[in-house]
């Protein structure tokens, strides 16, 4: 697939946090994207104090969508909430070397992360 960078390829073929089962009081989830536009990402975070301990994702979308989920699930564990909140979709796109066409998918990833962090605050 010409729209797939090596980074996407790696995350898509061997996604991180796709099989993790996170449950418990300190687990929140955030979902973003719409079926209509072909990308839905759901992120789960296990949080202890101000630190993210573990992350998992589910994705419906193109390989880039899957790769965004996997990249987040790999990057987030160990991060402070503030640091996670500062992450932008554009940074995710840069890290995965997404083509401009796929920037939207990375913005969905940012939204899913924001939604999960919001859910934690509202808790």
């Amino acid at each position, binding site marked *: *697939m010409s729209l797939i960078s090596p980074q996407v390829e790696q995350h898509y073929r061997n996604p991180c946090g796709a099989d993790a089962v996170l449950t418990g009081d300190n687990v929140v989830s955030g979902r973003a994207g*719409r079926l209509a536009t*072909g990308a839905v990402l759901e992120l789960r975070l296990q949080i202890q104090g101000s630190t993210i301990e573990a992350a998992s*994702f589910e994705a*419906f979308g*193109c390989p880039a969508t899957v790769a965004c989920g996997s990249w987040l699930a790999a990057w987030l564990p160990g991060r402070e909430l503030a640091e996670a909140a500062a992450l932008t979709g554009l940074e995710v796109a840069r890290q995965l070397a997404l083509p401009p066409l796929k920037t*939207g998918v990375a913005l969905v990833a940012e939204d899913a992360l924001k939604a999960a962090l919001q859910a934690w605050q509202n808790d």
Partner: protein
Amino acid sequence: MASDTVYLDYAATTPLDPRVAEAMAMCLQRSGAFANPASQHEPGLQAAALVERARAHVAALIKADPAEIVWTSCATESNNLAIKGAARFYKQRRGRHIVTVRTEHKSVLEACIALEAEGFDIEFLETGAEGRVTVEQLQKTLREDTVLVSIMHANNETGVVQDIERLAPIVKANGSLLHVDAVQSAGRLTLDMQQWPVDLLSLSAHKLYGPKGVGALYVRARPRVRLQALLHGGDQEGRLRPGTVPTHQVVGMGEAYRLAAEEAEADNRRTAALKQRLWHRLVELDGVFRNGAEDACAPHIINLAFAGVHGEALAAELQGLAVASGSACTSASAAPSHVLRAMGVPDQLAHSSLRFSFGRFSTEQDVDDAVEIVRAGVERLRRFSPIWRA
């Protein structure tokens, strides 16, 4: 191509039949018919004779007169020439209302839309989930100023067949012209210009084991249909399509159509059986749906939705299997197929669809290999799908 790839994308393009390649090779040698078929010297006349024989083969498959066949460079051009050419020629006489269908090929839809800038009024017929246009709908939509109706025969994404035999007389009774995109149906379904009151019909070579880069447009002679040309500059093709006629290309198309006349029936029986085999195996996966009318479908195409997985991701899973993914993700929009959306397929499933298409060289082994590759991909993707719960 990697010889271990299973190719089930015949609706995108077919390989050449080796006999077509051979006929073409004869024109490509220095000792062959390389001269310009418009030249009046002996080598030119020899090339012209081959061009005319090829024209007769193409005409024969659709029961037309050779003089009714105009060579073009592809079916996209045939569709553009038919639609813009007829609309522009007849607008004064007849009007500026054009009727077409939401599930048409892009080259029909965009040719129509381009005419809007010239003051034409385009109306799109809707189809139900079956993908078919009804007689009542068509009747209701036709107006006194309808200059042209363009309805495809077999759909390229779903294989769904429109009932041209019943729809055509209604268009003609209204005094409008009828154009049919028969690119996917030529050689797969019967086309009979003696029986069908169709005015213009688009054909392509490369969907029927002929070469890419050549097509044809049938233009009815009696009563004579007139067109305004898109290209200007030579006397070729009755001035409807100037430019040096590429002998090897039209000879390839002619040979492909000649072979189709002889072998299509057997081919179609075989591909229909392979299609059923694939369907019966894949439906076992659960959450697999068939897009479009099952009982009015070209023999070589099947379009399947795999609930919970995205078509583009699935396509990326299918290493070693060449099929078409429903959504047009190489284009700027991430929108799913306009055909499936027009049929009311829910967004999720429209994004989850793949087209499998079969042809003369497909085998049962191809089907069985494809099933295993698809099964593995669907199962992996469903494991982390937020919308699939087995």
